[in-house]
């Protein structure tokens, strides 16, 4: 592909007869890429394969502007329009012989996997710092001491299990639609997860911690809720993974399977979030700790927003989407 000084070149249409070659020169699409904000011509590609995908065009664009690797490119037909997808084929887009694409820089990108691993490894490690009462957190006479309450040890096991599960799921279960997200997200997300983990862990492992009012009964009930919801959450993650073959980005309606935990799909679009909220409510009851309850509330708010968005996309994409389902709470929300 030759990259010329950005001048529109019109090829003569008085070309060869169709019989001689499948794509007469005049029918090779050309692509010009303009900056969406300044309209400056950044790149001109002639003789682009008609069946080229946006992904391939992005790769070509990177050749002339190496600082804009494909993950940070947003190409669109209209400066203010939606981004084109990597799988879109040039020929199938509503463009003439010369396709004009507008480019926006999405900023530095980081992979989802990296973000997830970092944001989940933090709480795992930080909680343990408080659990083992490393120096400079509580008074010096408490350094490396152990709590005398069973529930504190149980809470550490649950919290650690939760984040180990998340790390393993990130590595082996989840199939991500997007490869990357903006770099600034990692700072935002880690502050949230790590900050709350430290805040909760401080109180639960504090020498002056007060165990739950209703004692062992309360802890047992809470533990049951926690375990059931963890199993539920894992079941949903597996079910969602099985919907999508490896390496693909297909989207299908999830349905209940033989696993009873997945039957929640009958009532909600995102039962993984439902179970996640349930786990944290269980943990809050178990520890009877206000910061945990606040963390659950904030998490619930965020997950509700995500669930509503997901629910809306399902409805938009699938005509036959089950009408009984609510986004996150059966019948309510």
């Amino acid at each position: 592909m030759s990259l010329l000084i950005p001048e529109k070149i019109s090829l003569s249409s008085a070309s060869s007869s169709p019989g001689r070659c499948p794509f007469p020169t005049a029918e090779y699409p050309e692509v010009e890429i303009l900056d969406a904000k300044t309209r400056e011509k950044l790149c001109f590609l002639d003789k682009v394969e008609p069946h080229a995908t946006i992904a391939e065009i992005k790769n070509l664009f990177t050749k002339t502007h190496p600082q804009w690797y494909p993950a940070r490119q947003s190409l669109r037909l209209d400066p203010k329009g939606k981004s084109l997808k990597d799988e879109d084929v040039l020929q199938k887009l509503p463009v003439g012989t010369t396709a004009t694409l507008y480019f926006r820089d999405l900023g530095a990108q980081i992979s989802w996997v990296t973000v997830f691993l970092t944001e989940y490894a933090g709480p795992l490690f930080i909680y343990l710092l408080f659990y083992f009462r490393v120096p400079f957190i509580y008074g010096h006479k408490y350094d490396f001491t152990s709590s005398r309450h069973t529930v504190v040890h149980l809470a550490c096991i649950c919290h650690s299990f939760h984040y180990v599960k998340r790390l393993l799921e990130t590595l082996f279960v989840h199939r991500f639609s997007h490869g990357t997200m903006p770099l600034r997200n990692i700072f935002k997300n880690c502050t949230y997860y790590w900050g709350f983990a430290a805040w909760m862990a401080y109180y639960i492992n504090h020498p002056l911690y007060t165990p739950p009012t209703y004692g062992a009964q309360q802890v047992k009930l809470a533990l049951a809720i926690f375990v059931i919801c963890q199993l539920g959450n894992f079941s949903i993650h597996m079910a969602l993974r099985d919907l999508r073959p490896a390496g693909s980005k297909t989207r299908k309606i999830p349905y209940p399977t033989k696993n009873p935990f997945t039957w929640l799909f009958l009532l909600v679009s995102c039962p993984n979030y439902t179970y996640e909220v349930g786990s944290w409510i269980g943990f809050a009851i178990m520890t009877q700790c206000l910061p945990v309850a606040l963390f659950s509330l904030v998490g619930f708010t965020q997950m509700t927003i995500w669930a509503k968005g997901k629910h809306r996309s399902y409805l938009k994409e699938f005509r036959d989407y089950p009408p009984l389902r609510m986004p996150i709470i059966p019948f309510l929300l």
Partner: protein
Amino acid sequence: MAAAAAATAAAKGNGGGGGRAGAGDASGTRKKKGPGPLATAYLVIYNVVMTAGWLVIAVGLVRAYLAKGSYHSLYYSIEKPLKFFQTGALLEILHCAIGIVPSSVVLTSFQVMSRVFLIWAVTHSVKEVLIHQLIDSSWALLPPFHLVTTPRLMSTSAKAGRQVQSEDSVLLFVIAWTITEIIRYSFYTFSLLNHLPYLIKWARYTLFIVLYPMGVSGELLTIYAALPFVRQAGLYSISLPNKYNFSFDYYAFLILIMISYIPIFPQLYFHMIHQRRKILSHTEEHKKFE
């Protein structure tokens, strides 16, 4: 910062008034739906009432000054209207939420809540609690020995006339807010009626240069003055151990608030300066063409 945030939010067409300044705003090609006739009428009334309210506060300050002969402790003369009208500004959050004012709910909330916080949680609270705190010890006070000294303190608390409200710093931010709000609400009133005098627009986008730093100084000094009282009385603080395994140190919280002014104030201030250049020069060009 409450002053800064207010003026910035104002510059973004925020707050109670809504409506853009007609030709003056450099919003260019933006399509504005605007509030319906009923909403416009309500907003005009709201903004007129607020302008009047802050004028009452301004007049109250002047009269108290002339009567007393000094500028100390003028807060008491305008305490009630100040609380009423500043708290009333909470309605502006509602206006954004229901869409009759085209501004961000988050920004408006931040702006109004920071004002309301300063009025109630700092200026108002640091007086009464000294008396309540010592009589009603249901709050867990921080150092255990404080409870032992309570009887002695009870007899002296009634005489403890010193509190935040008599600080001069309170006057500093009250004046800054009063002038800012009178201009801001009249700006919105005139904008809604499509008859914005250039003087008002100029004032809104120029006086902040002095009023912002003035307001911020007043606010910071007031919070700083409140600190010893908060520490002594354990105001709004809860300590371990307790049933819900939670603690909150209002003293530390206030210090964090003060620190937050450092990143936030410059951003708001320079945003306003940028807005000023954009909007006032745009009007100049318009005038040239007339």
